[in-house]
């Protein structure tokens, strides 16, 4: 028997399953972030952020999430972490910085938590 779809299974705390529903919701946001593979596009975003958000047709929810620089809000708006990482990269932030922000820790605390996971 096939397994039930993740959406039909108990939710996992602190975890968003990036399925078709989320992929549709976040499409313009993710498409913009995908464009950041190219330096010219990263530069264009930095040069005029509002114009860049407009160019990719972001919704108000997407725009507010991006302007707030709040990754949890971007995920709630349908952002996928692999694409959002490219936005974070524009600001020189790594997945450890992003992890710290999402968990409300300092980056040092977040890194220490990871190190501790190896000691237990």
């Amino acid at each position, binding site marked *: 028997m*096939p*397994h*039930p*779809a*993740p959406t039909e*299974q108990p939710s*996992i*705390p*602190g*975890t*968003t*399953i*990036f*399925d*078709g529903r989320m*992929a549709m919701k976040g*499409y313009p946001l*993710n*498409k913009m*972030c*995908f464009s*950041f*593979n*190219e*330096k010219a596009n*990263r530069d264009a975003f930095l040069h005029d952020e509002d114009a860049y958000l407009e160019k990719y047709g972001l919704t108000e929810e997407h725009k507010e999430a991006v302007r707030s620089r709040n*990754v*949890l809000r971007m*995920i709630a708006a349908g952002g*996928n*972490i*692999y*694409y*959002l*990482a*490219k936005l*974070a*990269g*524009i600001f*020189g932030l*790594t*997945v*450890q910085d*992003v*992890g710290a922000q*999402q*968990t409300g820790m300092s980056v040092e605390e*977040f890194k220490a*938590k*990871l*190190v501790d*996971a*190896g000691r*237990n």
Partner: protein
Amino acid sequence: MARIVGGITTSHIPAIGNAITKELFEDPYWKPFFDSYPPVRDWLNEVQPDVAIVIYNDHGLNFFLDKMPTFSIGAAPRYENADEGWGLKPLPPFQGAPDLSWHLIESLVAEEFDITSCQEMLVDHGFAVPISLLWPDRVKTEPAKQIKTIPVCINTVQHPLPSPKRCYKLGQAIGRAVASFPEDLKVVVVGTGGLSHQLDGERAGFINKEFDLMCLERIVDQADSLTDLSIHDLVREAGAQGAEFILWLAMRGALDGKVRKLHSNYHIPISNTAAGLLLLENAGL
């Protein structure tokens, strides 16, 4: 005839690529990780495989959500690496093995796996970092003498993802395809990614050592017991990105039923991830 000599699984965390560029091999954070690779390189030097089939996932370099194939295979004479947006230096192109690629595609489609064939395919860190770890001299080697590669990309970005069982069966079909290729080639299968990690959400930084160690042990000779896991099980137990373990299962499927474990390592943390390494040799070798 072509034959699979063995399989390797390794994590592919982008930070490793930066650490290689900066030569942080003796740095206290990195040393326990890098020190686990020489035995695998020694085995590769001894066996001298001709081709590496690299089972990995794209993280938004080649594929976007506009078209998201479940299984795709490169069929090109070479594959370019490129800027992923957050600072990893692109590497020189990787050499392909298009004849074997097309043989894989033909065999897999005949076995009812619906494959997307790619004559142009940018390969990201999921592919490039493992190659750099396993063949560190590649960039200094002339292209004709470099390891030839075949990228096999499995969707782990957008759910539904293929089940662990389906990926294991894909690996088994890859094994049969290689065995029916008439050229006398030695093939190594590389499964990349994992082990437990989660980058997104309030659960970011999630690691599950107990589950990882169970997987590392069972994949050697009880892989069947892992193929009944669902993707939901993997996300819950190994983290949202720990679902990359399906790539390890695809590698294991391509090997014989009986294998010899020659080397393994498990190290927490590299960036947000529990790093795993495994070298399996086909017992019939």
